[in-house]
């Protein structure tokens, strides 16, 4: 039945038309469909590929940049710390120097004052001594002028005084 029917029997007409239609279809689709479609698809794929590559590159660059940033930031931070430290050191040094200077200055002043006072005191004492001696001489000359003429007792007194003065001087 199956083979008797036209189901599996050769038909030149169908072969002819199938060949014609298929080849025509092949040529038309080739020229007007497959070529532009495949081109568009592959150009899109290229573009996607390139875009992905570019993105990857950008990410790499970003990473490098980020690392650079990190380094710069760290350097800046170090710089800042160093500056701060230096500033503190300088401040302290300056403070201590100032302190020292003022101390030494005040010390010198005090010393000078002391020296001055000492000198004044010594000169004053000398003055006093000179005055006292003058007075004493004056007094003594007066006393001596009156009494030396008299008795021996007074002579003794003068001698004692002189001794005392001698002792004092030493």
């Amino acid at each position, binding site marked *: 039945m199956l083979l*008797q029917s036209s189901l599996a029997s050769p038909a030149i007409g169908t072969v002819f038309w199938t060949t014609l239609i298929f080849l025509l279809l092949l040529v038309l689709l080739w020229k007007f469909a497959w070529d532009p479609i495949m081109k568009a698809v592959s150009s899109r794929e290229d573009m996607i590929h390139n875009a992905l590559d570019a993105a990857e590159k950008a990410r790499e660059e970003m990473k490098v940049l980020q690392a650079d940033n990190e380094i710069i930031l760290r350097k800046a931070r170090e710089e800042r710390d160093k500056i701060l430290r230096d500033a503190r050191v300088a401040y302290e040094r300056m403070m201590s120097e100032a302190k020292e200077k003022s101390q030494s200055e005040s010390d010198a002043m005090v010393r000078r004052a002391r020296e001055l006072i000492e000198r004044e005191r010594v000169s004053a004492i000398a003055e006093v001594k000179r005055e006292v001696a003058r007075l004493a001489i004056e007094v003594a000359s007066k006393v001596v002028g009156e009494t030396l003429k008299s008795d021996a007792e007074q002579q003794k007194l003068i001698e004692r005084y002189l001794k005392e003065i001698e002792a004092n001087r030493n």
Partner: protein
Amino acid sequence: MLGLTVGTAESASSDTGKDETESHENGGKFDASTFIMDHVADSHEWHILTKKDSTHVAIYLPVIIYDKNSGLHIFSSEKLAHGHSYMGYAIAHEGKYAGKIVRVNSDGNHDGSKPPLDLSITKAVFGMMVASVILLLLMLGLARSYKRSGISAPKGFQGFLEPVILFVRDDIAIPNIGENKYSRFMPYLLTVFFFILINNLLGLIPFFPFGANVTGNVNVTFVLALITFLITQFSGNRSHWRHVFAAPGVPFWLLPIMIPIEIIGLFSKPFALMIRLFANITAGHIIVLSLVALIFIFESVFVAPISIFFVLFMDCIELLVAFLQAYVFTLLSALFIGMATAEPEHY
């Protein structure tokens, strides 16, 4: 356009008395195999329905015959419908040339001569033309949408077709033919894939102008397999032919056996392609039609729900088969081409 005519033939089948193909309408007796074969086999007319009064509604496709003696004849197949003869030609209903147009003598019987060259636009050819036009419009539209949208992401129908095209490229052509050589064969592989696919799918639609059994026609699959065969042989490189005529590693005294086997192998591959597609699609149609025929065999409307359920089920499977057979044909074509163009392995 194609000179086809729609008409209701006035002649009832019972008039002529030799209308075997229409016998399932005769006397209420239903012949399932004739019913099925009428739908699966190719014919010169596109039968749509038979009315209660035994008149037929059909699309009459043009008959084109070339006879050595009388030259080219083009006329509507309405003239040959239901056993009529026209200009000395009629469709033979029995014998060696059953279903073919043959010369008849005055009493309407085959005169025994060789049938003329029949280049008629038959049902299969017409269905193929419809499918090709649809495919062409579809793909030209797709190409235009690429031109319009440039390289932006595929949209709409483009988004549906592009993965299929890329599937043919990435899963059929490249793995079998190779990265370097596949692009030469892409147009053929894409065309044959979509040609088979669209004909398979349209064959499942049971309304005119669809439903012709195109890829289930052995002549159609023969042409497709022949083209694959020719492409394979013409693109075959030295190593391909050396494997046929002097297979490496085979002792020379075996060659007299090996060469015929290899040559048979060259032909058996496309032959298998031809038979596989034809048999799968025809079998699917036959199963669906058998399930429908059950209703008429049992002559009970209560069989209809069961039949419809199974037909629905079968149609789902046929949908899968439509894709599968298109895939298999293209895949094997790519495989054969790939084998013929493969560079010899380096040891």
